[in-house]
C-alpha cells in the first residue's frame, strides 16, 4: 500500500521538509504558521515545476534549502519571509 520505494534524493527532499517543519515548531504560533506556509508553498511549487530527472537543479535546491534551514535553526534568526520575483526569460 502507499507509494513505491522512494529514491535517495526523494528521501533527502522529504527529510529537508521535515527539518523545516521541526524548526518551525520551536517558534511562537504566529511565526510558525508563516514559516509553514512559505515552506509548503515553495516545496509544492518546485515539485510541480521541476523535472524529476533534473538532478543538478534538485541538488542545487537541496543545498540551498539545507543552508537556509541551518540559518533558521540558529537562535539569532527571528523569522523567515519570502518575496515573489518574476524572472524574465531573456
Amino acid at each position, binding site marked *: 500500500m502507499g507509494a513505491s520505494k522512494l529514491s535517495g534524493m526523494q528521501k533527502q527532499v522529504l527529510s529537508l521538509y521535515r527539518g523545516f517543519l521541526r524548526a518551525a515548531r520551536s517558534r511562537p504560533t504566529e511565526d510558525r504558521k508563516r514559516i509553514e506556509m512559505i515552506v509548503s508553498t515553495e516545496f509544492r511549487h518546485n515539485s510541480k515545476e521541476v523535472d524529476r530527472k*533534473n538532478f*543538478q*537543479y534538485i541538488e*542545487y535546491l537541496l*543545498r540551498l534549502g539545507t*543552508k537556509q534551514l541551518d540559518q533558521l535553526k540558529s537562535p539569532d534568526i527571528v523569522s523567515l519571509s519570502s518575496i515573489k520575483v518574476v*524572472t524574465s526569460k531573456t
Partner: protein
Amino acid sequence: MASGLIGRLVGTKPSKLATAARLIPARWTSTGAEAETKASSGGGRGSNLKTFQIYRWNPDNPGKPELKDYQIDLKDCGPMVLDALIKIKNEMDPSLTFRRSCREGICGSCAMNIDGCNGLACLTKIQDGSSGTTITPLPHMFVIKDLVVDMTNFYNQYKSIEPWLKRKTPASVPAKEILQSKKDRAKLDGMYECILCACCSTSCPSYWWNPESYLGPAALLHANRWISDSRDEYTKERLEAVDDEFKLYRCHTILNCARACPKGLNPGKQIAHIKQLQR
C-alpha cells in the same frame, strides 16, 4: 570604456567642443583611439580574434550546463583571462557570472579552471594563437551559477584546523608581542602566503573522491603553518587533531597541488612535514 565616454561627449556637446573631445582620448590612452578606429573598420584591419568557451549554467532557468562560445579581439583586450571575462561581461553577455576582486592575484576570488589547469584568472595570460580557450569552474565543486562555486565546505575545513595562535602560558612581557627569532619566522615562509584560492584542493584527485572527510592541501598547509609556528603552544594537540586516517592520510603525494598553486607554494611538501612529525 573610453569609447563610450567619447560617444557621450560627441552626442551632447556642441560641434566646436566635439572636435576637442575627440582629441582628448588620443592623449589619455592610445588604446582609446585604437578602439575608435577598430569600431569604424569593423575589426578587419589586423584583428586577433580568439574564441573563449565558457561553462554556463543558470539556476533560474535550469537546464543542462553548456559551453558557450565568445569571440574576443585580443588587440582590444588586456593580457589576462580576467580582462577577457570582464570584456565579455561588459560588451557581449552581462549575465556571465564570476567572482573577482583584486585583479592582481592576492585575493584568490577568481580561481577557475582555464584550459584544464586550475589558476587565477587575473594571473593567467591569454594564450596567443587561434586555438580556443576553455574556461570552466573549479573541478568537482558544486556550481552555484556559471563560474561561481560553493566554497563553504572548503572554508569549514579551514576553520576546523583552528587557524589562530593558541597559548597555554601568557606572554613573557604581558600586553606586548610574543617574540620570535628570524629563524623561527623563516620556518613559516612558503605557508603564510597562501590566499585560500582553493586551486590546490580542487586539483587533488584524492580531494575529489573524499571532499568531506579529507581536509585537502590548503587546509593541511595552514595546519602545518600553525604547527610550525614557534609561538603556538598547542602543537601536540594540533598534530593529534589531524592524525586521522581520512583527514591527513588520504594524501598520496599526487602533488597536483604544487603544480596548480598560483602563488608557487608547495602544499605537498608541507603535508609531508606533518606526516613526518606524526610518530
